[in-house]
């Protein structure tokens, strides 16, 4: 009986080539939208600029012109970091959900967010560090160490890390580091709390292009690794047994995936602070558009997450101008309801 139903259902589905074309079109449209929003993000801010000023600043830079300086020193670094960090979070979220086969998994699960936060708070409280540029390095160090520790701990003993152990080790190390952060926070003077709470909101403001360049290198490496394992992730999604039967080296895939998540999520957290929700939500959105194929899920997730973070950054700049709301907060406040709407209205919530 079920077999017959299955047969009739598949007979009414569209041919595969049409589905593929539609997917490619959607991806193309999302990238085009991202470009348009990127242009908008240079224009919008506490000082409004015209399109011609952007052209002039890009092709005939004049260091005495204020709006050129605004574009090169403020708007472009911000744009670069928002797009790169967003894409990194989206891609790493998709990888994380694929290898753990868990819809609750997010890039922070490898301990990178907690590690970055612990490193920043220790740097601020003990080292007296107070500039955002230095936070970036601390956070990068902390995220990397935490990621390595989680992977190393989960890989202990013979058969290599399995997804459940990875999740639990990540959750355990995250909570240990978060508790340490909390303890330092409660015992330190309140100026430390003030500095920390601003970092922890997650923002792309006030970083320079050097941070952007480092982020770009790290994200490129991460994305390349993702590209090499993307098709293996499809096999992993079918379960360990089936994956092995299909000839996938699970241990190698898992290791590379962890490396990619560490590079991507670690550098994104370092550059923009702990912005968790993007990496959690984007893969779900991507799956609802692209279907189960991980190669497409990865691409969509990266593009959509970049779009989300960029839009959140623009809204955060506009909504209470001339003051600003951090992009991490806007992401949660606007992304959350949007996500809920999708869960109720579309096939995203169908298991």
């Amino acid at each position, binding site marked *: 009986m079920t077999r017959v139903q299955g047969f009739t259902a598949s007979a009414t589905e569209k041919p595969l080539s049409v589905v593929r074309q539609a997917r490619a079109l959607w991806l193309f449209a999302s990238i085009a939208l991202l470009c348009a929003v990127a242009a908008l993000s240079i224009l919008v801010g506490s000082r409004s600029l015209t399109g011609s000023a952007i052209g002039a600043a890009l092709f005939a830079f004049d260091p005495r012109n204020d709006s050129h300086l605004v574009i090169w020193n403020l708007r472009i670094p911000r744009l670069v970091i928002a797009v790169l960090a967003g894409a990194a979070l989206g891609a790493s979220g998709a990888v994380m959900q694929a290898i753990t086969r*868990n*819809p*609750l*998994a997010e890039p922070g699960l490898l301990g990178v967010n907690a590690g970055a936060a612990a490193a920043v708070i220790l740097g601020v409280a003990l080292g007296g560090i107070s500039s955002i540029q230095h936070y970036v390095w601390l956070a990068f160090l902390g995220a990397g160490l935490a990621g390595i520790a989680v992977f190393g*701990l*989960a890989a*202990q*003993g013979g058969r290599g890390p399995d997804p*459940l*152990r990875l*999740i*639990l*080790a990540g*959750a*355990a*190390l*995250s*909570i*240990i580091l*978060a*508790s*340490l952060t*909390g*303890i330092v*926070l*409660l*015992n330190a003077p*309140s100026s430390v*709390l*003030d500095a920390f*709470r*601003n970092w*922890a*909101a997650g923002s792309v403001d006030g970083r320079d292009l050097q941070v952007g360049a480092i982020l770009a290198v790290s994200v490129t490496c991460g994305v390349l690794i993702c590209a090499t394992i993307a098709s293996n992730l499809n096999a992993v999604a079918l379960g360990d047994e089936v994956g092995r039967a299909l000839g996938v080296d699970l241990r190698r895939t898992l290791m590379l995936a962890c490396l990619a998540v560490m590079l991507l999520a670690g550098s994104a957290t370092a550059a923009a602070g702990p912005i968790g*929700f993007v990496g*959690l*939500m984007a893969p*779900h959105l991507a799956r609802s558009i692209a279907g189960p194929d991980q190669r497409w899920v990865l691409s969509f997730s990266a593009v959509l997450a970049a779009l989300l973070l960029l839009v959140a950054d623009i809204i955060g700049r506009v909504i209470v101008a001339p003051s600003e*709301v*951090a992009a*991490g*907060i*806007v*992401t*949660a*406040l606007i*992304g*959350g*309801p949007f*996500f*809920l709407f999708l*869960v*109720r209205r579309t096939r*995203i*919530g*169908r*298991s």
Partner: protein
Amino acid sequence: MTHVVIRPLGMASFRLHRRSLWVGLLLLVSIILLAVLLLQTGTMALSVSEIWTSLIAPGSHPAADRIIIRIRLPRLLTAVLVGGSLGVSGTIFQSLSRNPLGSPDVIGFTTGAATGAIVQIILFNAGPLQTSLAAIVSGMVTAGLVFVLARKSGTTGSYRLILAGLGLGAVLSGVNTVLLVMGNLDRTASAQLWLAGSLTGRSWSHVLPALIGFAVLLPAVVWHARALEVMETGDDMARQLGISTESRRLGAILTAVALAALATAAAGPIAFIALAAPQLARRLTKAPNLPIITAALTGALLLLAADYLGQHLPFDINMPIGLTTGLLGGIYLLWIVVRR
């Protein structure tokens, strides 16, 4: 033989997992040992015999009586009840969401409770009673909202429940961050303190509601346990076996949220017990069924150990119970995960 059958009255019989029984006994003994240690500890050290006389026949030593009955015993019982409630609550949520990361946060309870408390502290500068009241109310409202949002054409389904919880949780954590970042720095600090949870200054007025609630809810949970075990294999299977999945799910969520609310009211949000206790219990007992009682015992033991550690720290470090729990439970869970 892996199971023991007990027939207390000749008619009703309980089939118990042998290893679970031993693990449970071991946990109980450890809890009692830690409880004695905790009753001894404090600015005024007391011997075991002094504690015993104060508990059994008070009167001979008024100062010791007051310390034991008014201060240390309520604190101890609060810790046991909070740990037990959170352990059970986490077990239910992990089973309902079929997810090892399940905790009262899956349905938004923890984040919602934090929102209520932060609003009270930062916007209204409220006292402890209003704060925990607001926390419980907003936590429960959030949980109800998530359940309603996840409902579609009469069914909930564990996947949609998780997604709705994530979405609403994100909105509320955004609100929390806004308040913490924009609020007055001193009030932010006291909100942080509340968020870390505390066992200081607990009295019998904290213990009694928690005790009554726990005593009422635990049988309800045990009653739900069989149905939940079957539902883990899938809603279709459970329905075929004659379980009305929707009403059972609603009932289980209600009891689990009520347990989490009890714990939050008594000690604030205590991280991680709901996540770690069921996992630890499962790994200790290696039993196939829901480890409800073992999870309760594990949770209580974790909280007592955290309290003991928090009271024996060098350098006068301020270390609230919630953070100690996170530290201790995290290290223990890590050890359990790594060892295998």
